[in-house]
Structure formats: C-alpha cells, structure tokens
C-alpha cells in the first residue's frame, strides 16, 4: 500500500514537471513567434539538433530500499548528457524516467510505461537483478536497444544474453573472481569461510570467489554463514557462526544495511580483529557502508570492485570533483560512475550512426564498438557476452586523513571479462 501511495506521488511529481516543461516550451514558441513577427533572422551561432528527438527511457528505483542507487545512476547519466549539451548524432536527447521500485511487477509496469506510452527509442537502467532478468524477454522481443546500468545477474551475460541488451555495470562474477586469486596467492591465506546474504547476487559472488580461490590451492572451511536477505533482525548468531579459530579469514558478500549491521556487530564482538583477512566483493565496504559505520570499519579489509573513490587517473579525479560540485557536495559512488558510462555509451553510439536508430542492428553494432577511458579505467564491450570488460581493482580499507574511511587501490587485474558460461 505504501508503494501505491509512493507511485501516486511520483506521478504527481512527474505531472508537475511535465507541466513546467510544457510551459517553458510554450514560452519558447511564443518568443520565437514574436521574433519572426518582428522580421528578425537568426544570425550565425551553432543551431540545435534538427533530427527527431531521441527518447531514452530510464527505469531505475526512485523509491524503496534502492532509491539511493537509482538517484546516483541518474545523476551520473545527467552529468554526462549535460556535458555534451544533451544531444548526439544531430538528435536532442530526452530522458524519461520511470520508477523501478523494488518488485518485479512494478519494474515491468515501469518498463511498459516508457515503451508503450512514451514510445522511447531506447531503455536503460535496472538496479535489481530479478527486475533486469524479468524484463529481458519483453525487451528482447521488441528488439529494444537496452543498457543494464547495475543489475549483475550472471545469466544476462550467459544463457539469457540478448543481442539487444548490453551491460555497462558488471556481472556478479567479475568483482569476486580476482579476489580468490589474490587472497590465496598474494596474501597466502588458504582457509576461508564464506559469509553472505543468501540471494542471487550473494550466491553468484561467493561461487565466483570459490572458483579461483580453490584453484589457487585454498580451502573453503564450512559451514557457510548464510544470512537472510535482507536481515532486519539481530546479526549476532551469524557473527558467532564464524569459526575464528579454524580459519585465516572470511570472504563476504553483503551490501547496504546488511553490511552495516553485520560489520558493526562483528566489530563489537571482537570477531573482526581475530581474522587474518576480511575479504569480499567491494560492496561490502563501499563508501555508503563506511560512512555509516565509521570507526567500526574493518581496517585492512581486502575487496574487489571495478572502481574506487581513490583511483588517481585523470578521468576519475575529474569525475569526482565535477560530480560533487554539480550535486551540492554529494560524494561520487560506483553507481554514479555506471550511470555516467551508460550515458557515454549512448552518446558515442548515436554519434557513430549519425542519429539513425531505425536500423536496430546497426545501432547495437555501434554500441558494441564503443570504447573509451572511463573514471573506472578502460571501458569496452565483450562481443561474447555483451558485458563490459573492465579492470577489477583490489582495494584495502583504510582511514585516509583527508577522505576519512575509504578504499585504497593496492593491486589491479585489467581486462576481466565474464566467461560467458
């Protein structure tokens, strides 16, 4: 019922925006008419795009638990589109947002809304994996050019990949894979217990870690600690299930609120300090989590992710400072980077086909060919999986005198590509 109400509010908000846009348009037209009536002529200067408007349907959560992710991704997109004057290939780019919310039924409704009601030329977004997977057949059937901007479910790069759906974010396999090698070989920690939120992303992430970790001579010490997702109750029994005396460390996949409550409880009970290594997928200690737990942060935790706030490449430094300037002091995060890159792919592809998106296959081929230097490093697509090939950074959680708790890059595995099966 709360969702219902939220949706109503969103609709009202959207109506209002539309009205304002409409008013603005009206004024512009009136102004132009007055200008023509006065017998004026435009003189020089670059004129706006003359091709048909390019409508981009953005389906992301703006309410519910993932609202923050949706906002970050949207901010990143807007930032890139603004930087190119909201046009590419002689077409004006218009974003039409729809609220993905949390559940599949809402995400399907949001997708249908932008496709059938607004008649968009392309769809981008999807934070949650079930929502991306659940809309896959619909979008694929329509041959709708689609970019997944977050959802990491492996199958979209494997059995369920579509020639019309590319992913700019990551597959769950990617950030975890190098961590297994790193922990076993570089750190020499050979006995690891798995600790994860028991849902799709958690299971895929630990499976990927296990692959490389055991291949490098590591042993997984059972039983796994699997928490419910989301876990709104006490984390104590799960923290206590970590067998500190039998292991060298843990590999963990948790994010957001779950990571916050788990890490705090583990710090309180003194479990973390007894472990040789706390490793995980980067989301476990990403900036949102660290900001919430501050000094309960796991000092020295080793995690893998396709970005870090502390990356020193020029693109990232530029991105971080401009982002926080544009969005009143908000710190950039990995989701904003994904949104930024998604927008860049769209713009580059539109330019490459000179705005012609009627030939869907041609447009998708242009998308597949896009490559550039992203804030996260080299960005290009994998022809086998339609997923991004990217560097996975091994990061260490530290307290930086300037940034506070953050993740320092200590190693990197360039060109990590999902195996596609």
């Amino acid at each position, binding site marked *: 019922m709360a969702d219902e109400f939220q949706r109503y509010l969103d609709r009202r908000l959207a109506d209002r925006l539309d009205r304002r846009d409409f008013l603005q348009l009206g004024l512009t037209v009136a102004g132009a008419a007055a200008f023509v009536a006065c017998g004026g002529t435009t003189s020089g200067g670059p004129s706006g795009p003359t091709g048909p408007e390019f409508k981009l349907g953005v389906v992301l959560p703006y309410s*519910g638990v993932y609202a923050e992710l949706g906002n970050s991704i949207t901010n990143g997109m807007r930032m890139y589109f603004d930087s190119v004057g909201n046009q590419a290939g002689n077409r004006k780019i218009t974003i039409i947002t729809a609220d993905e919310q949390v559940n599949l039924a809402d995400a399907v409704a949001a997708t249908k809304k932008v496709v059938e009601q607004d008649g968009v030329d392309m769809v981008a977004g999807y934070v949650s994996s079930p929502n991306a997977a659940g809309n896959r057949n619909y979008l694929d059937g329509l041959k709708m050019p689609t970019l997944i901007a977050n959802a990491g479910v492996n199958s979209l790069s494997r059995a369920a990949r579509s020639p019309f759906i590319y992913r700019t974010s990551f597959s769950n396999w990617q950030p975890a894979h190098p961590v297994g090698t790193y922990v076993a070989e570089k750190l020499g920690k050979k006995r690891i217990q798995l600790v994860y939120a028991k849902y799709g992303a958690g299971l895929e992430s630990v499976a990927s870690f296990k692959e490389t970790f055991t291949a490098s001579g590591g042993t997984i010490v059972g039983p796994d600690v699997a928490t*419910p997702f989301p876990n709104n109750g006490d984390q104590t*029994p*799960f923290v206590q299930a970590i067998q500190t005396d039998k292991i060298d460390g843990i590999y963990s996949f948790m994010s957001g*609120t779950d990571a916050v409550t788990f890490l705090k409880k583990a710090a309180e*009970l*003194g479990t973390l300090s007894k472990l040789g290594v706390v490793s995980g997928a980067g989301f476990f200690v990403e900036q949102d989590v660290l900001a919430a737990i501050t000094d309960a942060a796991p000092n020295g935790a080793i995690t893998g992710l396709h970005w870090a706030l502390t990356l020193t490449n020029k693109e990232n430094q530029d991105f971080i400072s401009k982002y926080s300037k544009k969005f009143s002091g908000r710190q950039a995060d990995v989701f904003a980077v994904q949104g930024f890159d998604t927008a860049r792919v769209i713009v580059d592809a539109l330019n490459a086909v000179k705005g012609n998106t009627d030939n869907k296959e041609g447009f998708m081929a242009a998308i597949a060919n896009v490559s550039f230097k992203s804030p996260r490093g080299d960005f290009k697509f994998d022809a086998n999986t339609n997923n991004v090939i990217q560097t996975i950074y091994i990061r260490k959680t530290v307290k930086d005198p300037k940034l506070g708790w953050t993740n320092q890059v200590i190693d990197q595995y360039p060109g990590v590509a999902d195996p596609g099966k």
Partner: protein
Amino acid sequence: MFLLAAGLSIIFGLMNVLNLAHGSFYMVGAYIAYSVVGATNNFWLALVVAPLLLAVIGAALELVFFRRLYGRGHLPQVLLTFGFTLVFVDLIRSQFGPTTRSIPPPHGLGGAVELLGATFSAYSLFVLAVAIVVAVLLLAGWRSLRVGAVLRAGVEDKEMAGLLGINLPRVFTLTFAFGAGLAGLAGVIAAPEFAIYPGMDANVLILALVVVVLGGLGSIEGAVLGSALIGLGYVIGTSLFPQFAIGLIFALMAAVLVVRPSGLLGRRI
C-alpha cells in the same frame, strides 16, 4: 522490542486506538538519537531527549487528530495513522536522505563480554538490562501507582471511569504521549544496535503488532511475555532456517490465537 510493544499495547488497550504510526515514533526516536549523538557525541543525552520530544509529538497528535476519532471504529484510525507513517517516512527521507546510518554504542559499551562461556556484545546486555528495568517499573506502576489504577480503570470500563470523576481526555492525552515516549526510547536504544534508515519503522511495527496480539491487548505482562517469545522465536528461527524466520513467528502467533483468541494474557473478548 518489549518497549515498543508495551507502548503500543497501552495505547491500543486503553484507548482502543489502533496506532500504525507507532513504528514511526520508533524511527523518529532513532533519528533523534542520530542527530543528538552527531551534534554532542552524548548518547545519554539522546536517551533523555528523544522520549521527551516524542511524548510531546504524541500529545500534539492526540490533541489535534485522534481526539476527533474516538468512537468511530478502527477504520478511520487505521487510515489516519497509516497516513502518518507515510508522512513521517517522507519527512525523514527528505531531511536525512535514504542512506543507511548508524551510531556507535556509547563509550564503555562498545566491546564484548565473556559470560557463562559465551561472548556477548556489551551493548546487547545493556539493552536487555534497560528492557528489564523498564518492564519492572511499568509493572510496578501499573499495579500500585494511582496512575496505574486510573489507567486500569480506563482499560476496564471507560464510561464508568468517566462517571467516577476521572478526567479521561487528559488521561488519554497523557497515555498517548507516554506510549509515544516509550517508542522513542526504544528507537534510541535500538539505534546503536541496528541500522538507522527510512523503512525501519515498517519492519519493527509488524513485529510489535505480533507481540501485542500474542501477549494480549492492553496487558503489560502480555507484552513482556509476547516479546520474549517472539524474540526467541525469531533468533532461533533465523539461525536454524533463515528463510523461514518470519513465517515461524506468524505460525507461533496463529497457534496461540487458535488456543487463546484474546492472546496469552489478554482479557476474554
């Protein structure tokens, strides 16, 4: 948990008001704790400030809104209080944003304690102690103080209590304020233990409702018993079969209701 359920139970039992906004009071309490600790780094101050502020909010809401709805059945109350939950959660979101926050346990309670061969976090023990103290105080007050007597009279028979010269409107306002204050206290206590985020209200409200129904409406003893049962059920449930913990709780409630329709310690309806 008990703190929350007790407040809810008193409000419901005495005033016959189904207050869905009770979870919101809890959430607001947690955010007040977050703000106070952020500004002064003093958890104990938050422990005093939040319940008082929420008591004031509760009293104001009672005077302005609930007062008009007595005797009109539960549906208008459900609508009104559900509306409040939406308002509160959006206010919180617009003020603090949707990100998760947390505060550290107060100084000296941040570590772990070895007890009977098991390790507990000191703060968890502190929470337990507070709950026991509040429960004892409430029970004592309920049984032996004049206020308790007045409240019990109100629960038993509103008209008769009114006829006996008890100023029921004032009692109602104070009761509501007290219940809201308890929810605020629960919010502060929970803040270092759990994460603070918009939506924490809904999670806890459902559990509180189950506790109240299980224990019996309008009964403090019932709230104590109910919260102990639910707490145990939930922890054991999450450890043994994590995916079924919530289901287990509701199964427990259903089983009790079959045997005792008015709850474990509730009055017969």
